[in-house]
C-alpha cells in the first residue's frame, strides 16, 4: 500500500501520534488514559508508518528490534516496585512521590515509572507480534 498521500501523511503523523501517546501516558493518573492505551496508540503510529513506507523502513527508523522494549519496560516497572523497598523499607510496589510537582508533567511518583514500563512493554509486545506476523506473511 504505497500511496503517496498516505506516505506523506504518515511522515507527519508519526511524531504527532507518538507525542499524543506520551500525552495519554502522562495524563493517565488524573484523566482517561494511561500506559496501556498510550502504548497501543504508539504501536498504531508505527504500524501506520509501516503500512505507508514498508516494514523495512520502519525497522530502520526504529534502529533496534521492538522486542528489546519488553525487557526494558519490565525492568522499569519492576524497579519502580523495588524502589520503595530499598528507599523507605516499604512493601513492594508501594507508591512513593516526589514532594514538588515537576514543570509540565505535574506530580511524579513511582506509579508514573510503573506506567512507563507498561507503556514500553505494550509497544514492544504489539510491534513484535505484528512485525513477526507480517514478515512471515
Amino acid at each position, binding site marked *: 500500500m504505497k500511496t503517496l498521500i498516505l506516505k506523506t501523511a504518515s511522515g507527519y503523523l508519526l511524531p504527532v501520534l507518538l507525542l499524543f501517546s506520551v500525552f*495519554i501516558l502522562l495524563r*493517565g*493518573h*488524573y*484523566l*482517561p*488514559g*494511561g*500506559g*496501556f*492505551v498510550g502504548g*497501543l*496508540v504508539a*504501536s*498504531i503510529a508505527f*504500524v501506520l508508518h509501516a503500512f505507508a513506507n514498508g516494514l523495512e523502513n520502519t525497522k530502520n527508523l526504529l534502529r533496534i528490534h521492538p*522486542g528489546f522494549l*519488553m*525487557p526494558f*519496560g*519490565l525492568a522499569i*516497572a*519492576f524497579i519502580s*516496585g523495588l524502589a520503595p523497598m530499598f528507599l523507605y523499607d516499604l512493601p*513492594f*510496589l508501594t*507508591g512513593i*512521590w516526589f514532594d514538588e510537582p515537576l514543570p509540565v508533567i505535574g*506530580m511524579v*511518583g513511582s*506509579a508514573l515509572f*510503573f*506506567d512507563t*514500563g*507498561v507503556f514500553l*512493554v*505494550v509497544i*514492544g*509486545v*504489539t510491534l*513484535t*507480534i*505484528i512485525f*513477526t*506476523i*507480517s*514478515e*512471515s*506473511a
Partner: protein
Amino acid sequence: MLAIVVLCFITAISLLFFGNYIKKNAAFGLTFLPLAGFVYFLSKLPQITNGNIVTESYNWVPSLGIQLTFRLDGLSLLFALLITGIGTLVFAYTSNYLKENDHLDRFYGYLSVFMAAMLGLVLSDNLISLFVFWELTSISSFFLIGFKNSSATSRKSALRALTVTGLGGLFLLAGALTFGTIADTYSFQEILNGSIDFTQHPLYSLLLLFIFGAAFTKSAQFPFHFWLPGAMEAPTPVSTYLHSATMVKAGIYLLLRFSPVLGQHEYWQLTLITIGGITMIYAAFHTLFRTDLKGILAYSTIAALGIMVFLIGIGTELALTAALTFIVVHALYKATLFLVTGTIDHEAKTRDVTQLAGLRKVLLPVAIAGFLAAFSNAGIPPFSGFIGKDLIYEAGLHSFQPVLLIVVAVITNVLLAYAGYLVGIKPFIGKLPEKFEKIHLPSPLLWFPPLLLAVLGLLFGIVPKLLVSLVNPALQETFIGANLVQLKLWHGFNLVLLLSLVTIISGLLLFYFLKPNNDLTKFIVQFQTISPLGIFEKIGILMTKVSLLWTNFFQNGFLRNYVLTIILVISFLIGYNLFFNAKFLWDFSTILSVTNYEIGILSVMLVAILFTVFTSSRLTAVASLGVVGYAICLLFVFYSAPDLAMTQFTIDTLTVILFVLVLYRLPKYLKLSENKKRIRDGFVALVFGGLITILSLEVIQEPMNNETGKFYAENAYLLAKGKNVVNVVLVDFRGIDTLVEITVLAIAAIGVFGLLKLRIRNN
C-alpha cells in the same frame, strides 16, 4: 551449620565458572569441602554427647510460619558425620576414579549439591525445609544416576529413580502439611513437645500413609525397591555415597525422627515389620541370582534397609539401638565393598563375579579391605558387624513375635553374609587369570579410602565405646527416656551367639557350594513381567497412552474446536447454575429506559454481526467484526467508561490490522464449513448468548454490593494521589496484577516470535 550447607552450594555454582581449571589441576582439593564439614561436626560431638543441642534459626517465609531452623542433635549428628565422613573419602576417591572423565567438574557440582541437600535434610527442624532438601536430594540423585547421559539405560534408570522418589516427595509434602494443620506448626520440636497425641488423632492413619509413602520410596522398600538396582548405572562413587551410605537412608532417618511421635502403635509396628520383613527376604534372595558385583551390592543394600525398617517397626529400645548401630556398621562395610568394587571395575574393566579371581596378587591392599569388609558384613567377631548382628538378634528375641522374626532375620543375614563373601572375597582368591596379570596397583586414592573404612569397621568392633558415643545421643532422640547404651563384643555363651555362629557358618557353606553363574540370572529375568518393576513400567506406559489420547482429543490444533469446547463448557456451567439457582423474577422497571442512541448503535451492531456471519469474503467479515467492536466502544462512552472505550478502540484497530495481515495469506473466497456445522455453531452461539443475557438480568436483580468500587473511588486520591480510578487501580492498588500481566504479554510475544521465526528459518 548454615555456612557449611551454603558453602556446598557455592562450591557447586563456582564449578560452573572455574570447573575447567579445577578438574585439570585441583580436583583433589575439593575433598577439603566435606573434610571441613566432618571436622566441624566431629568438634560438636562432645557437646552433643553431653546432651546439648545446637540450633541455628533464620527467618525464611515468616508469613507462612516457615523457618530455616538447623538443629544438631544426636540423630542429626550421626547422619551428618556419615554424610561428611564418607563424603570425604568419596570425594577423594572420585578425583582419581573419574580422572579421565570430561565432565568431572559437573560431577563434583552434583555431588556438592547433594551433600548440601542431604546435610540440610538431616539438620532441618522445619518440616517444609525438610521437604525442600528431600526433593533436592532426589534431583541431585537424578543427575548423578544419569551422569553417563549418552547411555540410554542410564537415562532411563535416572528417570525411574526420580519418578519413584519424586512420588515419595509428594507424600512427604502432604505429610508435612497434615502435621502443620493438626499441630499448627511446622517445627518438628514443637510437634514433638506439643500436647497432641498423634497416635490417637483421627488422621493418624493418613499421617502414617504419607510418612510411609515418603520413607518407603526413598529407602527402596518393597514394592518400590526397583529403582535402586537401576541406580547402579551411576559411577561407583555415587553408588557408594548416595545409594548405599546416605541418601537411601533418608527414609530411615525420617522413620527414626517420627518414631517418638507416631511410633508405639499397632499400625506403625505391623506395617513396618511386614514391609521391612518382605524387603529383607525378597532382596536377600535376589542377591543369589546376580553376577554383577554392583547388582549384588544393590540388593544387599535393599535388604539392609529392610532390616532397618524392620527394627524401627519392632520399636523397642533395644530394636532402635540395633537399628542405629546397624546404620553405622552397615555404612562402614557397605561403602568399603562398593569402593572395592569400583577399584576392581576400574582396573579389571569388569564387574562380573564369575570372571574375577585371584586379584589379591595384584591388588593386595584392596583385597585386604575387601576381606575385612566381608568379615564385618558376615558378623564375625571382633568386627563391628558382629555387634550389629548381635543386636538385631537380641532385638528380635525380645520382641512380641520372637520365633517368626528371628527366622526371617537369620535367613536374611545368611544370604547377606553370602553376598558379602561374594563381593569382598571371591574376586581375590583362586588363580589369577592371564588377562588380569598386567594389572598394577593404582594410585593410593583408589585403595586407601576403602582400606580406611574397613579398618574403622574393625576398630569400632574392638573399641565399642566409639560406637556408643555415636549411637547413644541418637537413641535419646528416637526413644523417649532411653537408658544409656551399652555395647559389648562378648555377651557370654547364649542363644544370640549361637545364632551368630549359625549365620557365619551357613554363609560360608553357601559360599563354598553355590557358585554364581549366569543361568541363575537368566532364571530370574523370566519373572520380570510380574515383578514390581514390570508392573510399574506397565502403569507408566498406560499413563502415556491415556495422556496421549486425552491431549490429542482436546489439543487438536484447530482454533475453532478450542473455542467450541470453551464455550460449551462455560455454557454448561452457567446453564447448570442458572437451572438450580435462577429466580427469573426480573423487574424491568429498575433498568433505565433505552435511548435512541442506544437503539441506533444496537442496530448497527446487529447488521454488522449478520454481515460477519453471512458474507463470503474474509476481509468483509473482519471489517464488520471491527464495526461491532467500535459499536461496543460507543456503548462504553455512553455509560461513562472512557478508559475502557479508548482501550477497546485501539485494541480493535490492532485486531483488524492483525487479521488483515494473517488473511493476506489465505485464499480469498470463503467457504469455511458445511451448512450443518454452521447451524450447529449458530445454535451454540445463540445458547451461549442467551445464557449470558439471563445471567446479566439475574445479576442486576441482586442487591448491589459495591464496597470494593466505593473503596477505590474514595481512596484513589487519598492513598494513591490519582483522580482516574481505573488507572490508579491498574498501577497502584493492583500493581502486582499488572506487573504479572505485562510479563505474560511479553512471554506471549516471545512465543509468537519464536514460533514464526523458527518456521521461517526451517522453510
